[in-house]
């Protein structure tokens, strides 16, 4: 028994460097649960290995940032683990959306609920889900190769995010954590240009598609009387560039 344990303990280094097979990894992780010494050693060596990575940092291609940031808007996050449950290293499967041919990506996103989830519009009503054309349009913008992301906290709390594709001249506006308004008030979205503001619609769900946006335009959100207005009547709680 002693021999086996020692043998496993020697694996700390190979485990940290991912130099063991999947089967051994699982066995070793089970062992770690019952071997505080091994676990402590693994943690220390993992910090060391991280520094190997820091030491070989290479600036990635600039386009990567926008692609990753845009992808976060269509990627649902894992909830926290329930407290007190022992943590186990788990292999998680890749979310591979970025390098599909664009048309396929759009279809995939539209066909699944991925597009809805992506924008945090998980609480979509059945009515919204029927609005297939809209979801497809949203998916097209967030998966566009030139998708750009801007996010800001509103002066009334909550966050607004705008994903714009200049090529498509469309922008997806989504909100999260907004204060709920009395039934006499609504959040209204505006496309603001030097020639004035035009309504892009009322924020009913948590996202909305604005069409015909041009570079230099800005997206604004105001609180308006129910039903909306033709021109903003209050100071915007958020303004973002597109």
């Amino acid at each position: 028994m002693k021999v086996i344990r020692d043998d496993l303990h020697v694996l700390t280094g190979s485990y940290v460097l991912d130099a063991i097979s999947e089967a051994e990894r699982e066995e070793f992780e089970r062992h770690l649960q019952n071997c505080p010494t091994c676990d402590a050693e693994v943690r220390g060596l993992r910090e060391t290995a991280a520094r190997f990575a820091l030491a070989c940092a290479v600036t990635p291609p600039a386009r990567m940032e926008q692609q990753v940031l845009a992808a976060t808007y269509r990627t649902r996050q894992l909830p926290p683990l329930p407290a007190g449950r022992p943590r186990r290293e788990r292999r998680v499967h890749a979310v591979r959306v970025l390098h599909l041919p664009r048309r396929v990506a759009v279809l995939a996103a539209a066909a699944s609920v991925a597009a809805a989830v992506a924008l945090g519009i998980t609480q979509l009503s059945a009515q919204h889900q029927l609005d297939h054309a809209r979801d497809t349009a949203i998916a097209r913008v967030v998966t566009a190769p030139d998708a750009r992301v801007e996010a800001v906290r509103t002066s009334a709390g909550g966050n607004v995010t705008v994903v714009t594709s200049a090529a498509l001249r469309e922008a997806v506006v989504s909100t999260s954590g907004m204060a709920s308004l009395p039934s006499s008030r609504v959040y209204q979205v505006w496309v603001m240009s030097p020639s004035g503001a035009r309504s892009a619609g009322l924020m009913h769900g948590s996202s909305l598609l604005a069409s015909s946006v041009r570079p230099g335009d800005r997206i604004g959100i105001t609180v308006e009387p129910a039903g909306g207005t033709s021109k903003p009547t209050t100071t915007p709680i958020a303004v973002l560039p597109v």
Partner: protein
Amino acid sequence: MSRPDIRQPASAPDCELDLAAQLALVARGDHRAFELVYGELAGPVYGVVRQVLRDPAQSEEVAQEVLLEIWRTASRFDPARGSGAAWALTIAHRRAVDRVRSETASSRREQKAAEPQPAEDDVAEVVEATLEHQRVRRCMSGLTEPQRESIKLAYYSGYSYPQVARLLGVALGTVKTRIRDGLIRMRDCMEVTW
């Protein structure tokens, strides 16, 4: 998009505190915090994936997956168990290694590895000449040649210890011991305190 420049060495303690704090915000869906995390980790993530995979296009793809994985699983980061950088870069290395193992004819890779190896910083792009880089280099030079070789083949080339053993023509147990002893020596040399 504007993003504050946070290019301090990632080993600075306040920087790491910051990364852990940002990851906690990311876990709650904060996209701005994720931009900061991206700024901090994209370089090392891409760098380590490049080391293992070599191919730039594939590396970019895998690096994107890793960064998205950081977004997706931020709630699983536990600061009590290690630094944010260690958590994230563990994901990066493992993902790169998984990719290599899932697709390459290992015999061909092993054959290639038997040829003279480029130094770990000979990737096409210039590795950022950081303090960290100097430090790792210096500590590496304090290892025995067999330790250094085993660690480099495992970490930078992504070989399993049985593959390393075959490449070097030594027993499995020998390789496991070399890797562990070498890493412990590296740890002590670099005085891992974040």
